[in-house]
């Protein structure tokens, strides 16, 4: 399901008429604007693949742990086995995604949302 659909082909704002009402509300006009569309697309293009990936990675771990416990017991060094390394990798990937998202959002998302919010609060829509 396309949860993060960018506003439906409505990228150029004022040109396309909103579907239901004859006059767009303030929020609908913003939602149809170029700036908002960019924010939405950027947000979706980071968050959707990341969520998909992390869920696949997590459930891969769960499935392997449940259905291939023998593989998890293969020794890597000493008493440390594949299962332990796999688990610690889950921790590492969680930290990595959290850092990556924070840095990405600060660089790529925050300047855009700040600008749009400023304009909205000064009544420019």
């Amino acid at each position, binding site marked *: 399901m396309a949860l993060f659909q960018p506003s439906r082909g409505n990228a150029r704002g004022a040109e396309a008429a909103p579907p239901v009402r004859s006059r767009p509300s303030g929020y609908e006009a913003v939602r149809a604007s170029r700036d908002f569309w960019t924010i939405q697309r950027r*947000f979706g293009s980071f968050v959707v693949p990341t969520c998909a990936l992390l869920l696949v990675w997590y459930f891969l771990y769960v499935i392997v742990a449940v259905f291939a416990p023998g593989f998890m017991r293969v020794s890597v060094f000493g008493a440390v*086995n594949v299962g*332990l390394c796999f688990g610690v990798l889950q921790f590492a990937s969680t930290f990595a995604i959290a850092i990556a998202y924070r840095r990405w959002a600060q660089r790529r998302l925050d300047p855009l949302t700040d600008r749009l919010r400023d304009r909205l609060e000064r009544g420019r829509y």
Partner: protein
Amino acid sequence: MPQASAAVGKPAINFAIFAFFVLVTLVIAVSAAGKNKSATDYYAGGRDFTGWQNGIAIGGDYLSAASFLGIAGIIALSGYDGFLYSIGFLVGWLLVLLLVSEPLRNTGRFTMADVIDLRLRAVPVRAAAAISTLTVSLFYLLAQMAGAGALVSLLLGVSSTAGQDIVVAVVGLLMIFYVMVGGMKGTTWVQIVKASILAAGAVVTTLWVMSKAGFSLSNLLHHAALASPAGNAVLGPGLEYGVNTVSKFDFISLAVALVLGTAGLPHVLMRLYTVPNAREARRSVVWTIWLVGLFYLCTLVLGFGAMWLVGGKQILGAPGGGDSAVPLLAYHLGGTILLGIVAAVAFATILAVVAGLTITASACFAHDVYASVIRKGDADPSDEVRVARITAVVIGAVAVVGGIYAKGIDVAFLVGLAFAVAASANLPSILYSLFWPRFTQRGALWSIYGGLISSVGLIIFSPVVSGQATAVGAASTSLITNPHIDFAFFPLNNPGIVSIPLAFFLGWLGTVTDRQPADPVRFARMQVRALTGVGAERGTRS
């Protein structure tokens, strides 16, 4: 019932350390509270906490008795399978970070229902969201109260049933005091202090265990496996969950609930409102991920350390079973003083988490049920806070009674159930409200009630409640111990694998069959506000 001799250490010293901790937290709660007047003060601590403060406080809420005592206990008894628990608990935070924290902070005021209500503006939906919030909070509350009884009986030598009940009642009274006096600001400061001590204690004990193992993880695991009757099996998955096909699916069900449940926990979501803006909310979740992650890595060492140094036999024999693994390990390492400190921190944890849950539940009742459903939105804010305070007392009483009955149930297990209910009843409608343009009132009602009824219903008809007799004629290990009463037809202990997809499906089905289409203006407002923060309530100082 535990014997009187089961208390470890010297009860008098334990009691003194306990009393000292409780006193310190009370002073913190009272002095931090200041003037707790407005609803924003009471529910959201004035929205003045910084990202790292709130992040540590959320971590404190999350690292409840279930994590601190429960997970380490499962590792100490079943080895690797406890580690699987902690990974689910941690990974779930990424969904909070990526999908929920910022939009939630941008669109709500005090409760989870605020967000769904902004989108759908319907009293029945707010009522439904309130009912599911209250149910999840009560489930979680019960788990914490159950842990309190076991812990205290271990440490204070309180072995009689009546004595333990009194302890649970004292926990309830203290918690009501925190909430009434401290509000969100007071409980948040208690949480921050407690989480810092908890983290420091975990790191020190972990290093201590590691030093005994020559700072070699391999050595530690090797010793632990030698000490366990199961041998090397404890180092891999499957000891607890790999017994048969049913238990394997039970584990998958639990894993689904753990990873999706965090983003639906009302007391965690409510904390996101205590910061001035969405950016600080994001920062707090990143802090929480660090704190929770590092803490769980410590519990891995603590759990295997307890398996090695204390041994499963002694842990199982102690009151509270697995939950006593860490306190016993502390006693083994540092004697009475370290035991007293670890136990006092654990006790403070229970108090603080219970207080946080009570604030959430009372805010939900006052803000969602009283102000919006009963008074139709024209309640005076000071009236609302008064109702919240009264509700806190009622919830405290309910928690005490529930805690007395829930004594002896595995804490981590109860929390797993709370996660399943949260993921089924709350998460679908939050995500649909935020991101799905077509979502309607009917979809929301179907998904909330469908998720709530299916998850709670499946728990009632699962082996958790009835029919888990291990042998003919023996007492059942379910809630209903009479082996002749058996109405369980759902084979899994955790309902998540059925109820969570069902709730998402019902939300979709209710929406597409709704004759009343979604209002595009509301969705536009929701999305614009969620992504930009326009119109969000700021902190009182910024």
